[in-house]
């Protein structure tokens, strides 16, 4: 297969030099591979344009001085790269990015860990109550975040107390710390990861887990040494999706801190910080958005190595 893809690639360049349309059409009819290739390129270019165009538009906006943003065309009016400096002068945007990154990462770690265990259970074990539990977990995602907010806000700001006989314990005040964001994120984004991992873990052949167990791992050991590595695409995807969800979240992100970078406010707060009472510096916000998306781009670049790995080949004879 590798070879086939190899030729695919090579021929790709030759294709461009080829002659007129008709000749191409006739070769396509003879050799449908060409048609696939053509479709492939058309699709790729189409997707690239549609997904990247809004970013280009953001770049146009950011490079145009804010006062000139009106009647925009496809090119920036003016050229103001200094905006990428100004944005850091106006708001400590890097700190917000850092906060988002930390929040995203810690949530992702918690979610992957707990969802892995749950995914293993749901994907590979049969036990009473399984379907019911899965449905219950799924049901959590039916609710808008607002439905969770008030009780959690009280819980995390010390407003909830547990009465244990004579002693009353108040919940700690965690406002302006990462905890009241990370914990709700973990709970709210976990169902998706549980479901993703359930499907992926469920597909790993039993034989491999068996082999690991006979070699001396516990079932959990087999999970971490064999099943998770083999489900790398699924795990990486669940991770990326969770991380990005945190990056995107704006409800808890907003209300569980006072909006200051020093209070762990994430990137959303940072971007809104640029906004004045009435005036909106679109150029700064656009610049901030471009910069703000970078960590995710880097994460995706890193994670994609894992997302792409057809690893099951060669494992089993069956």
């Amino acid at each position: 297969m590798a070879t086939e893809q190899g030729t695919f690639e090579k021929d790709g360049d030759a294709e461009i030099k080829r002659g007129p349309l008709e000749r191409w059409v006739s070769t396509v009819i003879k050799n449908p591979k060409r048609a696939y290739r053509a479709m492939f390129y058309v699709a790729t270019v189409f997707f690239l344009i549609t997904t990247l165009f809004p970013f280009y538009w953001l770049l146009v906006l950011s490079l145009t001085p804010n006062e000139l943003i009106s009647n925009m065309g496809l090119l920036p009016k003016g050229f103001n790269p200094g905006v990428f400096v100004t944005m850091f002068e106006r708001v400590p945007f890097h700190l917000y990015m850092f906060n988002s990154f930390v929040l995203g990462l810690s949530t992702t770690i918690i979610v992957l860990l707990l969802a892995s265990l749950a995914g293993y259970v749901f994907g590979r074990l049969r036990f009473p109550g399984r379907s019911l539990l899965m449905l219950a977990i799924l049901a959590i995602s039916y609710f808008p975040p607002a439905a969770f907010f008030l009780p959690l806000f009280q819980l995390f700001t010390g407003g909830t107390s547990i009465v244990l006989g004579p002693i009353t314990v108040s919940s700690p005040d965690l406002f302006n710390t990462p905890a009241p964001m990370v914990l709700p994120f973990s709970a709210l984004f976990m169902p998706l990861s549980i479901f993703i991992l359930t499907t992926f873990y469920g597909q790993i052949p039993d034989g491999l887990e068996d082999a690991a167990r006979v070699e001396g791992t516990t079932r959990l050991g087999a999970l971490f040494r064999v099943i998770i590595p083999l489900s790398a695409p699924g795990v990486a995807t669940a991770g990326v999706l969770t991380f990005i969800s945190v990056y995107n979240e704006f409800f808890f992100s907003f209300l569980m801190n006072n909006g200051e970078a020093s209070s762990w406010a994430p990137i959303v707060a940072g971007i809104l910080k640029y906004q004045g009472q009435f005036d909106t510096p679109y150029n700064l916000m656009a610049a901030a958005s471009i910069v703000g998306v970078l960590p995710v781009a880097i994460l995706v670049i890193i994670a994609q190595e894992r997302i792409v790995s057809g690893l099951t080949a060669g494992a089993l004879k069956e």
Partner: protein
Amino acid sequence: MESLTETQFAYFLLAPALLILLVIALYPLIQTFGYSLYADQLTGSARLGQFVGLQNYIDLFTGARDFALPSAFLPTFTTSFPFVTGIYSSALMVTLIFTFVSVLFETLLGFVQALVLDQDFRGRRWVRVAIIIPWAVPIVIQGMIWYLMFQPNIGFLVGSADDPAFLNLLGLSYTPLRNTADSLFLIIVGDVWKTTAFMALLILAGLQSIDRSLYDVAKVSGATKWQQFKMITFPLILPTVLVAMLFRTIGAMRVYGIIETMAGCTTVPSLSCLVVTTFNNSMYATSATVAFVTAGLIGIVVSVYISKFADAEGGF
């Protein structure tokens, strides 16, 4: 630990996840449900804090609570559903249209994107990043992008009567973001732009997990590319696709952020818009009521969905 029975072992492993869900999700939900049983008006007969039982729910269904919700923009959308009336039904309508259309297109496009990304070609990693990156754009920004593109006199995608832009010629009004139909359309486009990556990413992961030797067998058996897709690829990634669609459907039915940032909840009131608007107006009981009814509706949609695909998924 290893000597636990399978059931004990299962619950043992589930414990941490269940614990966090219990405290962070279930406990607040119960509390919130409690709120929905109290009045939240500072005026009127039942005053703030008074226990009213299920009255809030009854009011929601009878339309007696419409005043508290953002109005339905287009009167044509206020047509009643059999079981809900007034603004709620209009929001339900908007939400269902949004959900159906956006999930449909996201699935289709996501599928194609995943297939493209599954190929081995030079520069694949960059194409992959490009395709995934819209999903990483914070909603605020995405709203801003779209808002500005469709803002008369700023964006180039709308013009004026004297100087119509391309999309206007196709029927888009000159003030698309104040018009429910146009806004809904643009919001769907925006959501598809952003969220297709979610689908693509998941489906791609599914594709990557398929044992490649099965394709060898299929090829030798005489399968064309399409047949390989239909008989091997598709059934094997179906569980993943279903999970992706399931969560997209749920997500779409809770759509709020993109609406608020692009067109505003007054223009395109979705179910979650009702929840958040009332929440922001400190009408916590109404908000809770709407949230629970909404969750119930999502539950209905999801169970239809699950029962349809239960066999294919094999998971539930």
